[in-house]
């Protein structure tokens, strides 16, 4: 096995404490997006008894593997 030269590997350690706001915020937004594409107005619903989001992304929901009616 050849050794990987240090300058072409990934030794850069980002201080997570400094970046934590950005990383946490990004994660939360991504999870909200995941929720609306895959789950909302199926198992649970934030807009009550409305099916617009569900019906609009209906095909994507099936195809991406989420449970659907």
């Amino acid at each position, binding site marked *: 096995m050849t050794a*990987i030269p*240090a*300058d*072409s*590997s*990934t*030794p*850069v*350690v*980002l201080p*997570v404490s400094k*970046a934590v706001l*950005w*990383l946490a915020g*990004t*994660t939360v*937004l*991504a*999870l909200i*997006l*995941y929720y*609306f*594409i*895959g*789950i909302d107005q*199926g*198992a*649970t619903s934030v807009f009550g008894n409305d*099916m*617009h989001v569900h*019906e*609009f*992304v*209906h*095909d*994507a*929901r*099936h*195809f*991406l*593997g*989420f*449970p*659907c*009616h």
Partner: protein
Amino acid sequence: MEKKLVLWGLVSGALAGLLAFVFARIFAEPQIQAAIDYETGRDAAQEALNQAAGIAPEPAESELFSRAIQANLGIGLGMVLFGVAMGALFAVVYTVCLGRVGTVRPRTLAMLVAGAGLLAIYLTPFVKYPANPPSIGHPDTIGDRGGLYLIMVLGSIVFLVAAVWLGRRLAPNLGNWNASLVAGAAFVVASGILMAILPPLGHLSANVAEYGMQNTETPQPLTDPAGHIVFPGFPADSLFEFRLYSVGAQIILWGALGLVFGPLAERVLRRGRALAATG
């Protein structure tokens, strides 16, 4: 630097979602339409049986969006936004992994993180609860099915993170190769146990009460009171193709995500290193 990485994650994710959408539009939509046609035909047969038995017909459901909207705009926006969401998560995991998972090149790390995303968020849950076309899946069980699917997704993410941690712990003693094998085996065993514990969808109480003991919710042949088959079960070939394309779309999505993000991240990291050297 983390802001740039997140930005490139979003861009790569959108592009990957777009590619997966093009694939879906060409290969998946015909299967989705075939499944909807099957459902329409089956409903008509059921209606005829009900009428013969003297049961009043159910009022037709009104449609919020036409099939044309769902099959083009809906699936397009859904896949692109899913790509954006996965790209964002990908960038966060990539940033946290930088320098913490051994000496890996930026591009290699991008492909590893993409593979991990595919495995934990899609493939492992798929083994237990595979993707289903329309007409498979009973409305009464959507709550249970959603919960079970999320348990599978969450479980495989936790197991994979634990496996990576285990591999890193074992690497100094066993060497990288053997440590990776042990960690991989631990992931497979843990996921297998979770799959064995969770119930098959056909065993949910609402399904057993209505359809008897089946393994899945895939529609069985429709029979009249005398036991004659009046409408076939869901076509097996159609189901196989839908699931094959579903896996294909995810491989395209995660593959594109890693391949596009890798070089971009490499540039960001090289600049960061140059800045640190001169500053």
